[in-house]
């Protein structure tokens, strides 16, 4: 998370307190479809379903979760784009969907076609390797690469592949970038020795604590919670980072009442560690990271515009 985002988060918290009653003032006109852009059973899917359950319990809304996966969230975005704007259709994706993926796909989808409701949590995205490699920091891995080893770098999205390429470029080495299906597959590949290093977005915590894996670097703009001494991408000479959050989104032109009622209700749930969703976010995603309203809309636009620079840099 950027410092600007942190400040915003504080501001949002204050606004939330002021508007806490709004959730009660809005009643959905019918059952709400919650589209989930992640495969069933994973951490992201569980997060969405727990939030849905708690929304039903607290506000008496009817929420029908539904999987719409594939193409980095773009399939969900395509299905959501022309949905009714009365708050009865929302979706959960990552900020990357509306930023990099929409910019790279060029399929006629734009963040302006959507209403940002709220972000929920970020990722603890690290560059991870096995302890048995003997590497303590990224420098060691780079030294090995310069010594002639062809290193395999696991990634789980095109944006991360670009970042891995730029990291290699900044450090003067060439990685063999291998795209896997999800962070779990990257971690399995690293553990099996099929990959030498790779991006993992938080699920490495237990193995890092147990000493099987090491965080060589933070792919974020800030250090990792678990391994604050690992260098960030900025200090490694990469002008871009893997910052991103899970977010709820609706179609463009969504009613203001529905939008603020939902963002308030969701923020209350994920900030409360007593709820299932809050507990999950605290344990697996490093705590809630809430950005809503116009600030979120502005960040969506900024992410989309910034994606062009990353795409250009990675194709050089």
């Amino acid at each position: 998370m950027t410092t600007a985002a942190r400040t915003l988060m504080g501001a949002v918290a204050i606004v939330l307190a002021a508007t806490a009653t709004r959730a009660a003032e809005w009643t959905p006109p019918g059952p709400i479809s919650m589209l989930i852009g992640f495969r069933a059973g994973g951490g992201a899917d569980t997060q969405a379903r727990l939030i849905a359950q708690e929304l039903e319990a607290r506000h008496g809304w009817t929420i029908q979760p539904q999987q719409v996966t594939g193409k980095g969230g773009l399939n969900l975005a395509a299905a959501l784009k022309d949905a009714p704007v009365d708050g009865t259709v929302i979706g959960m994706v990552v900020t990357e969907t509306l930023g990099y993926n929409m910019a790279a796909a060029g399929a006629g989808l734009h963040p302006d076609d959507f209403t940002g409701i709220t972000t929920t949590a970020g990722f603890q995205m690290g560059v991870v390797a096995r302890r048995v490699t003997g590497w303590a920091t990224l420098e060691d891995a780079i030294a090995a690469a310069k010594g002639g080893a062809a290193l395999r770098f696991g990634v789980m999205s095109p944006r991360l592949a670009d970042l891995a390429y730029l990291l290699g470029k900044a450090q003067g080495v060439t990685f063999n970038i291998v795209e896997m299906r999800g962070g779990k597959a990257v971690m399995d590949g690293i553990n099996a020795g099929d990959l030498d290093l790779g991006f993992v977005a938080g699920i490495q915590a237990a193995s890092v604590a147990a000493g099987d894996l090491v965080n060589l670097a933070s792919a974020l703009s800030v250090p990792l919670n678990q391994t604050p001494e690992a260098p960030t991408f900025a200090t490694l000479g990469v002008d871009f980072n893997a910052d991103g959050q899970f977010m709820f989104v609706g179609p463009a032109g969504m009613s203001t009442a529905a939008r603020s009622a939902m963002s308030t209700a969701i923020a209350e749930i994920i900030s409360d560690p007593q709820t299932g969703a809050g507990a999950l976010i605290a344990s697996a995603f490093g705590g809630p990271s809430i950005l809503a309203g116009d600030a979120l809309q502005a960040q969506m636009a900024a992410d989309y515009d910034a994606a062009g620079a990353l795409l250009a840099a990675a194709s050089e």
Partner: protein
Amino acid sequence: MDVLAHVWLGILAVFQGPDAFAVAGLSVSITLVMVAAGFLLGIVVGATPGLGGPTAMAIALPILISVFGFTPDALLPVMGCLIGIMKGATVGGAVPAILFNTPGTPDSYMTTLDGYPMAQRGEAKKALRVAHFASASGDTFSDIVLILCAPFLALLVERHLDLPEKTALLILSLAFVAAVVGRSPGKGLISAGLGLLVVYVGTGEDFYPRLSMGTEALNRGFPIGTAVLGVLVVGAVFHQMAEGFASRSNTSLQPAPKAGNAGRLRWPDIRPLLPTMLRSAVAGTVIGALPGIGSTLAATIGYTTAKARHDRTRAPDAPRFGDGVPQGVAATEAANSAVSGANLIPVLSLGIPGNTAAVFLILAADSIGGFNPGPSVFRVTADAINPELVVAFGLFTCMFVANALNWTVGGLVMRSMGVLAHLPKQRLLPVVLVLTLTAIYVQETRIEAIWFTIAFGILGFGMRLLDMSPLPFVIAFILGAKLEDSARQAFAATGGDAWFLFTSPVAAAFMALSVLVVVLGARRRG
């Protein structure tokens, strides 16, 4: 954490998992209840002509997932229930085969050959007991082999196979399935090729959903359930109904024979069966461990080898196979039941499904999440618990629970199922059809899924009409994404080496074998 700790955790997960209810202060875990429920359901569907394990698993899966949710806690109850169905159906299939000369499942066809003559002689009870005894023995044998082999095979793969070799292994399994299943390798290749082509619609690495013809209906691809259930279940229903309709005859059952003697099996009855059963169990286990060739072939091989041996060794005046010899029943049932454990060897150790029952276990693991069948399941790390390994040992425990049920109450339940053979197919199958479509809709929640399933049903019907096995299609559909991913990964990992499948000796050997099985298959039957 060492392996034994994981074994123990797996057993505990089954017996001490979330409780279903308590009896006299002893709580009964939900997983145990589900295994038992699945086993009984399996016997029922196995004993009902026109239904079988795959249909029951297909319909049960969405209901089970709705009950247990998408959490790792759901894995054991859901997969335990499916395992129960799989085992129950194998036992149940023998009932109508023996009593009415109508196989309940395809692999119990051979059971009719000696089972029905025995029943006509008034030895129905004895035939059922022989079938049950052989089935339970074959099953137990196979499970033991599974538990001994799967972890070692997985470790071997994990330790020695790199990305290119894993790709080559997938190609070999697919070539094997295409060449060996069914009667013609040409048709097998077509079936597998179509399965691959279909799974590649809407997927791919690029943001453009390939082969979607610009339609929104196709840009998410075909959901796995629509293809698998469409071709396997809906296609079979279409075919059975059309055949019944076209033959114009209301399929009348053979007359039910007299109940006959109570016929408890005693040691003198059992002893002569044992060598036959052991040979059949070994044959079934070996066949089960190979991907793609299922219990029907195992039953055929078990029966024909036993018959050949019997013909060589029998006394001149002794009855022949086909006259109602208990060995005939035992040979078939031991072989087809021995498939059910061993077919999980490639699933659990390599992630490659060997037959339709295994396909549904993969489907369940895939839908629930948190368990990815494959070599990584069997990894043991120094400090942390590997939850997937616990699930794997939990599944093994479920199999033994199902075995125990089979030995204790299975025979009794099975012998009471004769009445099911009277259910009229033409009234049952339409209900099964709509139930299957509903089960798919409930998971996918869009009407395209129903249209896709019907379309795949038409494809499955056409394949049966053309004598083309739908199994290569289904297995190719399931392995397709994995095959493409691993090829891309291997290519990228080797730094873009176009010959990545041939540079290592192991990968090259797998590739050579792939060509060899297809060529040999084509020659042998060409």
